[in-house]
């Protein structure tokens, strides 16, 4: 597998311009002859589809939900970053670039991250023009806040519903193109396979979720915008349908998968409360601006929080990190919560929670001020837990939230399969080993609105593609392969459920294995053990899973089974990736690689690279490396003491 990032030459600030100038274009009159498939209608997919259609391409768009407006992006709360520097507080394109690359612990490609910062400002302009109701100052200008510990206020937001409003903006643009007849929208479709013709991506096979039919769709380029794979852990903050299937099918067709073990675990989520639990709810990280994190000093202290005197509380983040305190980055906050709970100082019915306490903020600023700031979040918390954070401290625990890993892409966001592009959370490109708050929305829209069309034009302008249709052998083979796989999934279901297991039971088992061994802190022994355990769960799944119903109807158990089957395969490269990266960086803490003070220790001499996994057929997956060189910044060790 060749990993040529195709980073354009020239100074950092000129690369994107140089690239756009050097790239081939497609004449406007010719664009309608080309077809693009976009899979996914989150921020990345919806913005890409609308933009390509506006430029004149014929676009076919696919999503799992009943409407493109419901993609997982809708749930993003906090905001979107841009380097506008409207607050005049020292921000700049270079600072946003630097913060993002440093936040990612120097495991991302400089040129891509710089371009992200460069186009960030245009995103805000675009969204304002669409009528996205961003928060405003009294004078009518756009409001900003500082987010996720950033030292400048560069985050734009629409109440606690930024993702919703940005997505509805992109959905509006997409809807306009559907009306104009340039986008054909296929809802309730699940992509099952990429179809390659002569080594190039020329279409997909999808399953119609309502009728169960397998369908072929032919195109000149295929763009995956299918989101992240956090649900490999069963419990995460992701929507229920979030999956790895599309990316995994691409991997199986030859696309490299980069840094699969880089998973962000968010520190402020509502703790797990029962084994029936289906998902975890994020509480905005802004809460850490005023809340103080603590646990009882003594193990197994079961008193109510109000009965524990100050002297017997451990404000462990403030004590350990005097300069950042409760505002340390996500990975540091998460790991420390786990550490306290592992020491037996966790609180709540499961012992897997820490307090986030607003009592001091309330006595300092008054009830009204605090309620005004966080009332919405407090009410959401109360709805779920039946407890009021104005009266007693919140309980929080880390949860899987975002996946930095994803399909490997070059500067043009093309995977190792020609004609197959990956955008948004499903690629690996910009966040290195850790993502900063409010940067995922920025990346999704940067990819979709401002980058992908240039890349697609260049690809189409430099390659001559044969005319083909869905009767071509590769499409038939792919359809047949997908049908066979479904038949295999259903093969145990004939004799009834007795002695078998359900899809969710297996998914939970996989989730526990991954959380315990490939979660917040990792070590070789546990990773090895997980690698041995994984095939047993896989075998149990294929030999014993019981799926009711059949294939030619709405069958939600079958849909879930297909996704779990892919998670089971995918988990292997996650574990292998964590095992081979014998350093700590960003989200990835290898217990063997820590400083004397117990902080993550990066090893630039040996691991300054992107790990890219190639499907090995029946053999083991193969590891390739894209070296990372830093020409414009000097990697430093993070320190939050």
């Amino acid at each position, binding site marked *: 597998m060749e990993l040529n990032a195709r980073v354009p030459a020239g100074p950092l600030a000129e690369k994107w311009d140089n690239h756009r100038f050097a790239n081939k274009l497609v004449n406007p009159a010719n664009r309608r002859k080309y077809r693009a498939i976009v899979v996914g209608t989150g921020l990345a997919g919806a913005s890409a589809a609308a933009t390509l259609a506006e430029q004149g391409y014929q676009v076919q768009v696919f999503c799992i939900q009943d409407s493109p407006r419901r993609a997982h992006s809708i749930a993003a709360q906090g905001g979107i970053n841009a380097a506008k520097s409207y607050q005049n507080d020292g921000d700049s394109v270079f600072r946003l670039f630097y913060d993002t690359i440093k936040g990612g612990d120097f495991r991302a490609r400089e040129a891509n991250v710089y371009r992200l910062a460069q186009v960030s400002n245009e995103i*805000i302009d*675009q969204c304002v023009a669409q009528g996205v109701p961003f928060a405003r100052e009294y004078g009518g200008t756009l409001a900003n806040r500082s987010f996720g510990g950033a030292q400048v206020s560069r985050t734009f937001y629409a109440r606690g519903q930024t993702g919703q409003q940005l997505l509805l903006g992109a959905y509006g643009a997409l809807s306009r193109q559907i009306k104009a007849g340039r986008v054909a929208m296929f809802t309730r479709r699940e992509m099952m396979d990429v179809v390659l013709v002569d080594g190039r991506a020329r279409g997909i096979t999808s399953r119609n979720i309502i009728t169960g039919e397998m369908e072929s769709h032919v195109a000149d380029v295929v763009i995956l915008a299918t989101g992240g794979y956090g649900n490999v852990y069963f419990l995460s903050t992701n*929507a229920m349908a979030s999956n790895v299937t599309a990316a995994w099918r691409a991997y199986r067709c030859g696309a490299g998968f980069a840094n699969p073990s880089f998973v962000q675990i968010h520190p402020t989520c509502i703790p797990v409360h029962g084994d029936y639990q289906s998902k975890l709810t994020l509480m905005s990280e802004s809460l850490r601006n005023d809340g103080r994190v603590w646990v009882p000093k003594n193990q197994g202290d079961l008193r109510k929080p109000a009965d524990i005197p100050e002297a017997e509380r451990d404000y462990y983040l403030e004590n350990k990190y005097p300069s950042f305190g409760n505002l340390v980055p996500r990975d540091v906050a998460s790991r420390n919560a786990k550490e306290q709970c592992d020491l037996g100082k966790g609180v709540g019915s499961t012992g897997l929670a820490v307090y986030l306490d607003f009592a001091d903020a309330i006595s300092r600023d008054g009830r009204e001020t605090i309620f005004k700031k966080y009332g919405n979040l407090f009410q959401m918390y109360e709805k779920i837990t039946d407890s009021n954070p104005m009266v007693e401290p919140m309980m929080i625990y880390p949860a899987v939230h975002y996946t930095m890993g994803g399909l490997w892409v070059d500067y043009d966001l093309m995977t190792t399969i020609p004609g197959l592009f990956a955008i948004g959370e499903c690629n690996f490109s910009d966040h290195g080993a850790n993502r900063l708050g409010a940067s995922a929305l920025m990346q999704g829209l940067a990819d979709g609105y401002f980058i992908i069309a240039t890349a697609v034009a260049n690809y189409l302008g430099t390659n001559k593609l044969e005319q083909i249709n869905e009767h071509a052998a590769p499409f038939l083979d792919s359809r047949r392969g997908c049908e066979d796989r479904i038949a295999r999934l259903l093969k145990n279901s004939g004799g009834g459920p007795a002695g078998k297991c359900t899809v969710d039971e297996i998914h939970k088992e996989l989730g526990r294995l991954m959380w315990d061994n490939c979660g917040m802190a990792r070590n070789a022994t546990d990773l090895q053990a997980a690698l041995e355990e994984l095939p047993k769960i896989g075998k149990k799944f294929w030999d014993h899973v019981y799926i*009711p119903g059949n294939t030619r109807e709405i069958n939600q158990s079958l849909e879930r089974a297909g996704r779990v089957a892919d998670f089971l395969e995918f988990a292997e490269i996650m574990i292998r990736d964590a095992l081979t990266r014998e350093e700590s960086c960003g989200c990835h803490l290898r217990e063997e690689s820590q400083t004397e003070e117990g902080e993550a220790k990066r090893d630039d001499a040996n691991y300054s690279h992107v790990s890219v996994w190639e499907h090995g057929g029946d053999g083991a997956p193969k590891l390739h490396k894209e070296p990372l060189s830093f020409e414009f910044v000097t990697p430093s060790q993070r320190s939050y003491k």
Partner: protein
Amino acid sequence: MSSSINLTLKIWRQPHSDALGSLETYTLDHISTDMSFLEMLDVLNEKLTKEGKDPVAFDHDCREGICGMCGAIVDGVAHGPEKEVTLCQLHMRHFKSGDTLVIEPFRSRAFPIKKDLLIDRSALDRIIQSGGYVSVNTGGTPDGNSIPIPAKQAELAMDAAACIGCGACVASCPNGAAMLFTSAKISQLALLPQGQVEGKERALAMVAQMDSEGFGNCTNARECEAVCPKGISIRNIARLNREYLTAVLSEG
């Protein structure tokens, strides 16, 4: 404190669009009051699966009240008895042991039932397609701060923009009207300078689409507002009517 309750469920079962449906009765014991309504349905579905029966099909995705995918009529009320929540945000602590719950899909002429509680709401997408946006292409837009918008105006627009498109308003309306849904989008854009240019065309096109999808008329029953999980106000309907009338009059 969490406790556990026993329930009787009467759920609408309908194998596909063309089949006749009926209410089936199930009993479910030891339901933790900390569960969400959808988690309760998950437990039921695991039980049905293990008994060799067909689980209940229902739509859901985010499970935190924002995607608008979930929804059912519980004891006659869209999204159940609690105010301003979606079905996925409703928790079982709002029910008592021994309760019988009747669970049905959102019903409307414009929302065909696909299976059990799962319906087709694509008519709502088509209303948006008819004009629920500002017609700008990507690129070349002016600086975000070039049009100042009073904070209050932006907040009002945001109130309307909070609609999640779940369809509860339609299902609760005695006439099956989609006025609250349509008016929310028209209001958002009417309240912002960006939406002014196409205001008239938008109102005419969206109302026409609404009618052609088979949604009914608004007779001010206010049921929509009462069940809206996002608290969208019927003042938006008044604004739609104003926009529409102005458009009709000026188009002459």
